């Protein structure tokens, strides 16, 4: 019987995102060449919310893109029948820009590795930053986030489930133990 405990409810998520948005603007010294790229799935929705918050703070629209990393996964042969490939769409040229990768959970780091490879096929950003809602530890590659909502150490037999209003009807992050 899996046990579930709430890590962040909807209010906590909103507070975290607000803080992350300001941190972002601070780290990037403004927003002039900023573009947010959300990783499919749920990273996309988080990126869009962050963009709106930053727009609220700074008064200018931030371009937001979507990136699906399925074709760049390093375990493509092992995972069996193909997962559905989501949409990839980058609204602006990446050359010389500050790109912020946005994802819901950071774990082994392989998703981000795939994202970095894919972005390299699109152009050469001046600077790439990583922004995640939850860092659950357990890294298998030397990849670290620049902006984090919540750090939560986890064991391999545990799982972090993130739900977002746009896809799942509510905002909720919980820890699931098998």
């Amino acid at each position, binding site marked *: 019987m899996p046990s579930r405990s709430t890590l962040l409810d909807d209010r906590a998520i909103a507070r975290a995102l607000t803080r992350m948005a300001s941190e972002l603007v601070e780290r990037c010294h403004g927003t002039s060449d900023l573009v947010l790229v959300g*990783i499919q799935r*749920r*990273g996309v929705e988080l990126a869009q919310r962050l963009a709106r918050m930053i727009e609220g703070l700074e008064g200018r629209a931030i371009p937001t893109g979507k990136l*699906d990393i*399925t*074709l*760049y996964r390093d375990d*493509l*042969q*092992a*995972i*069996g*029948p*193909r*997962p*559905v*490939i*989501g*949409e*990839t*769409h980058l609204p602006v040229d990446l050359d010389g820009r500050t790109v912020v990768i946005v*994802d*819901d*959970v*950071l*774990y*082994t*780091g*392989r*998703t981000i590795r795939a994202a970095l*490879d*894919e972005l390299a*096929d*699109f*152009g050469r950003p001046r600077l790439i930053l990583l922004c995640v809602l939850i860092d659950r530890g357990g890294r298998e590659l030397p990849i670290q986030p620049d902006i984090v909502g919540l750090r939560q150490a986890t064991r391999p037999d545990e*799982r*972090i*489930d*993130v739900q977002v209003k746009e896809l799942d009807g509510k905002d909720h992050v919980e820890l699931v133990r098998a």
Partner: protein
Amino acid sequence: MTAPTLGKDLLGLEYLSADQIRLILDTAEPFKEVSERPIKKTPALRGKTIVNLFFEASTRTRISFEFAEKRLSADTVNVASVGSSVSKGETLVDTARNLEAMRIDMVVIRHPSSGSADFLAQRIRSNVVNAGDGTHEHPTQGLLDLLTLRDRFGRIEGLKVAICGDVLHSRVARSNIWGLRKLGAEVAVCGPSSLVPRDIETLGVTMFTRIEDAIAWADALNVLRLQLERMTAGFIPSLREYNRVFGITRDRLAHCRKELVVMHPGPINRGVEIDSDVADGPHSIILPQVTNGVAVRMAVLYLLAGGVPDWQQQGGSE
């Protein structure tokens, strides 16, 4: 409900379920985007070896497959050999065994004998993609035709598609009939009766003897290439007569619905089955077909290379 998978090979649309066909079409969408990028490559099939085994001369299909393979970062080898294996001296069985001995991952085969893709697939463990076997099937052409229609009309169900021309000798016609029927379209054929197979109506297809009737009825015309050999084999008296009686000409389309689209698997015999001003005109969606061809082939190769069914739903990111 378990997600559909494709199995080891793509041999024909007759063997696929509607769900499997939709899976391929849906998977083709993100691959369209890859072809629009500055770097038209993803590493999805990196390290895979694919042999294009073409026993029939074909430029466009082979090139389309080659682009699909290279854009997936696969290593490709082209083997071109005109004529059947019998005249070549090496049987198809031996070719198959040699390929397997070289540990080829996938084979794309085009061959003049119907059933040759099935034959190869039964004898090697590599994935086999049928790029056209005799007059039997050309499944990737059928799929890209479906995708192009779906792009244009938003659906396949209920669409009226008329396949026009030498249906008897056309593998494109057969694949189209299977694919369209499975996805709920209404299908008709139109051509000289000497070029329409017996019992075609048993496949759920209506027949028009006059091209004007087909044009009035259809949402889309899929115009087949008429080959010179048909004339010399005595099926029709001349190409000129064919164009006069069955050709898709501007006059014939003068009063048709604005939304009618015209497709053609290529290469076009201008002035025979279709006139130049139609092929280049506002109803034509021939070029989108070609673009979709690469995306569909990428989707097929990607899905086939997918390995053993051990489906785990993708959950949170890692």
